[in-house]
């Protein structure tokens, strides 16, 4: 019985091994006969991956980057899902949660705790903000994996990228986050609080470029891998999925943590300066006058 199983396993291994070798040989033969021809050079491809100068999509007459379309698609999907959850799932929440309820509760609980921990004085608004930002960054990065197609203004087809892979989206996120922190500083500490936040003027730049750079690095590596047909067997699946998944989680975590920390700093109550005690000389003078 055992012997028969071993023999069967060996046969399967041999078939797979020989099949794999034949496939690779076939690939090599095809590539040798038809050398790769690209419409763009690798430089152009990489440049377009970073700058999105060539492929534009029309949005109500406006020529925009594909990432903006991705962003609106993600928002629409998320809002639709939120409406459905609000109507059908939340009213049926139980004290002892089931699997579905736990999946919905966990992110809210995580971001709420993050906000309360890093910004103990005012955590209501920043909790909602980091929840939305975290969910948006994570899911919009994963959106890239779907590979939804759109038609460019030039009539070519393009796979919709992750919104944050566009510098404009990264700047928008960084600026908005900074404005939120600035607003919190202004509301909590007045002009003095706002000035305290303003001194961290590098924050929106660092936030924007951190997001953009992280997403871009993965995108560039994936573009590079896709560009060469010899590398486009199996490898892109691992590279693309790995970079996308890692960035989705890491960037969501980094931005939300940073925002909540800076928000917490901005909303920290500033200790009032103690009134300076009058010097003994002045006291003596006053006493003499009296």
């Amino acid at each position, binding site marked *: 019985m055992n012997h028969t199983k071993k023999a069967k396993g060996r046969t399967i291994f041999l078939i797979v091994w020989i099949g794999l070798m034949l496939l690779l040989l076939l690939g090599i033969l095809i590539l040798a006969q038809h050398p790769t021809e690209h419409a763009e050079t690798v430089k152009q491809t990489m440049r377009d991956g*970073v*700058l*999105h*100068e060539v492929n534009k999509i029309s949005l109500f007459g*406006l020529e*925009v*980057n594909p990432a*903006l379309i991705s*962003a*609106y698609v993600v*928002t629409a999907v*998320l*809002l639709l899902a*939120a*409406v459905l*959850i*609000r109507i059908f799932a*939340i009213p049926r*929440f139980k*004290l002892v949660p089931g699997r579905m309820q736990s999946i*919905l*509760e966990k992110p*809210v*609980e995580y*971001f*709420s705790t993050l906000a309360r921990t890093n910004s103990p004085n005012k955590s209501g608004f920043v*909790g*909602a*903000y980091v*929840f*939305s*930002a975290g*969910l*948006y960054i994570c899911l919009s990065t994963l959106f890239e994996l779907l590979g939804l197609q759109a038609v460019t203004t030039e009539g070519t087809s393009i796979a919709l990228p992750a*919104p944050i892979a*566009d*510098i*404009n*989206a990264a*700047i*928008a*996120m960084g*600026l*908005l986050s900074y404005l939120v922190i600035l607003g919190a500083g202004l509301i909590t500490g007045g002009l003095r609080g706002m000035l305290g936040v303003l001194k961290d003027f590098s924050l929106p730049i660092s936030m924007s470029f951190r997001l953009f750079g992280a997403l871009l690095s993965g995108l560039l590596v994936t573009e590079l891998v896709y560009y060469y047909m010899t590398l486009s067997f199996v490898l892109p699946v691992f590279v693309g999925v790995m970079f996308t998944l890692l960035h989705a989680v890491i960037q969501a975590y980094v931005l939300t943590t940073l925002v909540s920390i800076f928000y917490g700093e901005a909303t920290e109550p500033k200790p009032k300066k103690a009134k300076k005690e009058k010097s003994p000389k002045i006291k003596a003078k006053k006493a003499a006058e009296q």
Partner: protein
Amino acid sequence: MPLNIDFLQVLLHMLNFVILAGGLSLLLYKPICRFLDQRTAHFDALARDNAEKAAENDRLKAEYQQKLTDAETEIAARKTQAEKDMADIAESYISQAKDKAEAYLTAAEKEAEERKEHILDSAQTEIGELVLSAAQKLLSDTVTPERDSALYDAYIRLADQAVKDERKAE
């Protein structure tokens, strides 16, 4: 602009995120947070309630323990008292029994004495009757008028003699 930065698109992205953040906050974050807070409050209340009940249980346990100890003490005291009472009652019964026995004995002795006297009386009467009948029987054989008169005479003489002796003595 360098890096193909387009502020119009930046604003469009911002608008997109503001819409998303507002929607998610209203539709998901706040309702779920509210539910989580309510649940936390519910379980906190349960925990408080449990703690109160546990404290109440401890108090009741201590109270019952005290009552148990008191009851055991009372039972022991009552047992001692009951044993003492039992001993007293037993002693009283024994004493009464002794008294009764003594009374019975005295009565029995008295009755026995009376019976003895009665028996003796009846025996004397019977003996007297027997002696009388025996004497009658004996006398009927020997008594004659001549013997009777001789006896009377002898009695009178003796009586006279006794009177004379008494006078002499005086």
